[in-house]
């Protein structure tokens, strides 16, 4: 069920040509990232200032950039890079100085400052012209510049939602969705079941990338996780900064796939650091201390979902609604078939690949047939349902709900979690267990 990635804007504004040789030099670094930054140049015409005010109709796509403050450290950094692009080196330097006054440990800001000063003595070839410094030492900072700029030109689309947030339950007031390629985490509010964009933040993730497989591989896992703890600050090493929130890695699906390792947290940065490079952690999702303090206002231990993706897929509200409805429909069919004690139809909702860790499909079916044989009446109520599409190539959703089961010989209440996978046109349960 591949939904097209967010629609790209049509960029038609011509690039402003300048004949200044210095501009040419300053822009050399932009050329180096031509693929990504072509959008950068052309989007300039679409910056919020040049856009007409939003109409009451709200039909025009709006982006998160329009509602971002201009005085955040990142905004100052990006603005100074734009100043460089338009050959306002003095303005760029003033802005960088202002930024450094606010965030003296922002290494990338110091790098840009170095470049701006160096521009007085020699042509700039790229971001990071430190003489005699090996390129690999600068690569981290260049990457950070690239992802922060990219965010400016490709902000969260407010008319779309990440396809993972199909339904938040009533206790989940907020959700986080991370994009490891973009080094970004997006905060969404549960607005009567609808995910509403709140904010987004720069993140660092695993040094060796994502799709964690095993202990010590320094990768960030991709999947649906929840905040499960809040570690007391007093016990945290400086590396973790102002706070640490462990996530539920490895989850049920990870374990089934034999993934291991532990201790994947959301956490901050050391005191003498403003931000770490995009690829830096041992697999954790790292925010600046400032951003983490902001994010933690919205975290609920035991509730808040943190979905980590390589590359967020965005869908429009219509697609979001139809996907959500179709999953709810499947779950309801499963409930009804179970409630009507139609065991074969009930078991038909389970995949041949089903496993709950202890039982495979055959063992599960045998047990269910035996149990159902003793039932004369069953009443099942589901409530507080959350649905998250699983990031990655598996066409899978994670459904969690409160289940109130009453039958002639047993009553039971539990919170249950199911992993549903698309099998042809049908959805089948591949995992089921207590949440």
């Amino acid at each position, binding site marked *: 069920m591949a939904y097209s990635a967010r629609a790209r804007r049509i960029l038609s504004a011509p690039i402003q040509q300048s*004949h200044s040789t210095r501009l040419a030099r300053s822009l050399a670094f932009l050329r180096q990232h031509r693929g990504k930054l072509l959008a950068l140049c052309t989007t300039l015409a679409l910056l919020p200032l040049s856009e007409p005010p939003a109409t009451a109709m709200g039909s025009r796509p709006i982006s998160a950039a329009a509602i971002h403050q201009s005085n955040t450290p990142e905004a100052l950094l990006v603005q100074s890079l734009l100043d460089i692009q338009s050959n306002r080196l003095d303005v760029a330097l003033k802005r960088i100085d202002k930024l450094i006054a606010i965030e003296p440990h922002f290494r990338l800001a110091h790098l840009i*400052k*170095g470049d701006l000063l160096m521009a007085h003595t020699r042509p700039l070839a790229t971001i990071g012209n*430190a003489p005699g410094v090996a390129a690999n030492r600068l690569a981290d900072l260049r990457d950070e510049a690239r992802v922060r700029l990219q965010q400016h030109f490709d902000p969260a689309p407010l008319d779309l939602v990440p396809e993972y947030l199909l339904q938040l339950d009533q206790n989940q007031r907020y959700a986080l969705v991370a994009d490891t390629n973009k080094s970004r985490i997006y905060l969404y509010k549960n607005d009567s079941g609808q995910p509403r964009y709140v904010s987004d933040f720069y993140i660092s993730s695993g040094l060796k990338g994502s799709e964690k497989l095993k202990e010590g591989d320094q990768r960030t896992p991709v999947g649906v996780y929840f905040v499960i703890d809040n570690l007391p600050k007093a016990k945290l090493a400086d590396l973790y900064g102002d706070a640490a929130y462990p996530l539920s890695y490895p989850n049920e699906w990870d374990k089934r796939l034999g993934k291991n390792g532990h201790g994947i947290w959301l956490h901050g940065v050391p005191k003498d650091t403003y931000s770490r490079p995009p690829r830096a952690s041992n697999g954790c999702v790292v925010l600046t201390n400032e951003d983490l303090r902001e994010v933690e206002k919205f975290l609920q231990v035991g509730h808040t979902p943190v979905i980590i993706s390589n590359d967020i897929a965005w869908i429009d509200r219509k697609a979001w609604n139809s996907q959500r409805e179709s999953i709810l429909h499947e779950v309801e069919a499963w409930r009804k078939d179970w409630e009507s004690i139609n065991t074969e139809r009930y078991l038909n909702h389970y995949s041949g690949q089903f496993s709950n860790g202890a039982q495979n499909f055959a063992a599960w079916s045998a047990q269910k047939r035996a149990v159902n044989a003793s039932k004369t009446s069953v009443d099942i109520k589901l409530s507080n349902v959350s649905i998250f599409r699983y990031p990655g190539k598996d066409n899978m959703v994670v459904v969690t709900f409160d289940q109130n089961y009453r039958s002639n010989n047993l009553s039971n209440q539990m919170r249950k979690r199911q992993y549903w996978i698309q099998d042809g046109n049908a959805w089948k349960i591949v995992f089921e267990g207590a949440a």
Partner: protein
Amino acid sequence: MTLTRIVSALAVVALFSTAASLPVHADELQNIQALLKQGNQSQALDRANTYLASHPKDAQVRFIKGVILTEQNKTAEAIKVFTALTEDFPELPEPYNNLAVLYASQQQYDKARVALEMAIQTHPSYATAHENLGDIYAKMASEAYDRALKLDKSNTAAQTKLSMIKEIFPVNGRLQRPAAKPTVVAAAPAAPVKTAPPVAPAAPAAKAPEKVVEKAPEKPVEKAEKPKQDATHAIDAMLNSWAQAWSNKNVGAYFSHYAADFKTPKGESRAAWEKFRRERIAAPKHIQVSVSAIKVSIKDDTHAQVTFRQHYKADTLNTSATKTLVLIKSGDKWLIQQERVGS
């Protein structure tokens, strides 16, 4: 030693307020300079102080006193002397330059930068200040890079190649501004690389200035706009030819761009100015001047002004500055009547 490009003599005739005092002054100044040259700093300082007791305003001796104090590593006192000189003689670039060198020695690069910019403002083509400014920027950049890369603190003490001018020039009334003698200190990380290939000074087909902005008409050219357009093109061409002559080190062609009534930067005589410029242009092995961001404003048929970015590249120096030329049309040629830094 972190500072190497200090100037040790003032070169301005105008400072000799009365002709009568000149011989005495010149003798004494020479004596002090001779003592300094011999390394006899304390005696030189004594004589300077003695002289200043009766001639407290004398700029040359105050200046040499500052140089002596600098050599004695009495930085704070030297700063006082040069600061006072900048206050009493704000038109002189040398005290600013030396102040900058002293500030730089204390890692006060921002102050050093401001002082050098003042020096350049008073004297736009003051190469020593330009070179020092380039070094200051490189040094500040290096500090910023170190912070970015969290280099070991010990690296931040990298030497700059700010140069001190040691030569003492004869005080015979025919003063010359010393040619900058940049001393390149062994490979400091921050030091701009010296990359001047020797170029035959007379190379006739010297490279054209990098790229010159063609003033694009803002609006479609109207009939009435035509003369203005023509003037703008003529001024663009003149500016290019001026930069090219300078790049070619062709002083004759260079001077031909200046009007007969050219207002020299300090009001010196045309001959003195030409002599100074000739030396300046001769000093580096290689010069490349190009202009960009040209803004022409036509006052009337014979008066105009042009503001542009001047990119000056010499052996070890690479600077850009905004410059303004006041132009006058003589016959069919636009000529420079005034030249200043800034817009």
